[in-house]
């Protein structure tokens, strides 16, 4: 094991952590506000990656593709929320099962449209070659993914803590009935948050494309990781999603690199430790 191995794996961990954050932040926000465990989230990530594949055939710019793909997935998520999930308000289990149903529909739809072979997304121009920092070679694109995840984290934090919209969302999370009573349009917030979460997942799929490609089963690979992130970090907590993502990014990447056969068993360990001592997760609040 050379030093280069550890450095590269660390960067891989950070990149995976960043992608997981894009996925888990939306999941966590949706759960926190709407009490919906959105099991479609992994499928949104995969759908984003495949839509990215198609967009890139017309526009060869990954960043624009990520924005457009995020928008398409957000639109789809908004429709699901507005026309199906809303009708099931109060029926928590029903909502979860519907999101699970859509996860299957989307997964099979992707298989029909894009086929069963993995499709890699091209790395954006200028980021293909590694950069040298302090004598080590870093894949430039992974650094960019980490930077985007950090920027998204900061932007979400500012949105939640410094804007009127964020204040209304926080009010809805804390006490929905009271928020409604003081005139906050909670139903509209639901749609906004669901679209935002879907957009993050979809864009994450495209940004992750150059690293992990688009392939059938991508959803089933990402959803458990996102779930464990949210369980670790605490549902509804942005900071929790952030910290949890990078913990799981490291544990999973090093698990795969060092004990490839037992990577999933290793994932299990941080989860048990946290659940044993803090059942609500590291940053989960009582009552959440």
């Amino acid at each position, binding site marked *: 094991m050379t030093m280069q191995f550890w450095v590269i794996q660390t960067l891989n961990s950070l990149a995976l952590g960043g992608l997981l954050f894009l996925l888990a932040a939306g999941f966590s926000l949706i759960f926190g506000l709407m009490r919906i465990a959105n099991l479609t989230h992994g499928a949104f990530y995969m759908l984003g990656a495949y839509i990215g594949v198609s967009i890139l055939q017309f526009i060869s710019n990954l960043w624009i593709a990520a924005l457009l793909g995020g928008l398409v997935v957000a639109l789809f998520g908004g429709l699901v929320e507005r026309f199906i999930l809303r009708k099931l308000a109060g029926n928590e289990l*029903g909502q979860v099962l519907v999101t699970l*149903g859509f996860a299957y529909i989307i997964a099979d739809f992707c298989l029909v449209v894009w086929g069963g072979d993995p499709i890699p997304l091209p790395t954006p121009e200028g980021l293909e070659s590694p950069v040298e920092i302090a004598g080590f070679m870093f894949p430039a694109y992974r650094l960019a993914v980490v930077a985007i995840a950090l920027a998204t984290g900061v932007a979400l934090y500012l949105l939640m803590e410094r804007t009127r919209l964020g204040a209304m969302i926080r009010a809805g999370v804390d006490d929905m009935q009271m928020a409604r009573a003081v005139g906050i349009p909670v139903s509209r917030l639901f749609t906004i948050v669901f679209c935002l979460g879907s957009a993050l997942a979809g864009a994450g799929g495209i940004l992750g494309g150059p690293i992990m490609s688009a392939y059938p089963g991508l959803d089933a690979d990402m959803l*458990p990781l996102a779930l464990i992130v949210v369980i670790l970090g605490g549902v509804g907590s942005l900071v929790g999603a952030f910290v949890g993502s990078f913990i799981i990014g490291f544990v999973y990447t090093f698990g795969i690199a060092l004990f490839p056969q037992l990577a999933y068993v290793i994932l299990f360990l941080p989860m048990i430790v946290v659940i044993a001592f803090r059942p609500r997760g590291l940053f989960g609040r009582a009552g959440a």
Partner: protein
Amino acid sequence: MKKAAWIFLLAVLLAWPFVAGEFYVNLASQIFIAAIFAAGLNLLVGYGGLPSLGHASFLGIAAYFSALLSLRWGLDHSLSAPLALAGTTLMAGLFGLIALRATGLGFLMLTLALSQVLWGTAYRWVAVTEGDNGLRGLTRPQIFGINLDDSTAFYFFALLVTAFSLWMISRLVASPFGAALQGTRDQARRMSALGHNVWLIRWLTFVYAGFWGGVSGLLFVYYHKYIHPASLSLTSSAEAMLSVIAGGSGTLAGPVIGAAIIVLLKNYVSAYVERWNMLLGFVFVAIVVFMPDGLVPGLKRLWARWSKP
């Protein structure tokens, strides 16, 4: 009237292998296996109010244990079956300790995450599980010298085990413990104020449901003589959940009817189209939106309306 219906059902079940072809006999065996699996899950979902999306763990653990014990150590079925069930029950106890740190959606997410960890491990730990190839070369047990490789013999074996399992599950529901379990579902705080240990009731139910999941897992691996990580997947858990919801959670007959519908759908649809997953998704959405309390309560309502002039 009720007695007549039971006798009719028994007659049909006993006569089935002699009137139906082998394909239908095997189909019935698959329904039996799915019925035990769903009925066990129903204890959690329907009677305990604990929505588990990880019940496939127990089916898979029992099947893998049994397969590994006979393949790696050459154990006979008379040893491997009880060991596999004991191992499954132990794992259910452990998973229950973790998953029951939460209730409601938190419980659902924990059970899902736990079962996905198992699924991923079954895929990756090639040295033990053979990964995506699955474990081959398994056998069915011989019982009193009767070879279960014959589909009719297996049908009656599965029928007996299923009848016993469903009876045991219904006994639990009818017992004082079952009443307490339903109490924890409806009014957990009051139950706790009345001196019931709510957590313990839930944990014991989780273990009991896991045990019956293990029983269905043994039948499953005997039937297929093969086990693949797909049996541990979310799809496997979701099909069981769909059986419970479609038939009617919290009823004894519901999961059995639901399991029959899912097995029939799966077999017939996959014979004509390849799109089982898409159909599964649509069935999920349709049932939750249009028939939220399932077939059995829905039909009961219709029956009550019809029989009352």
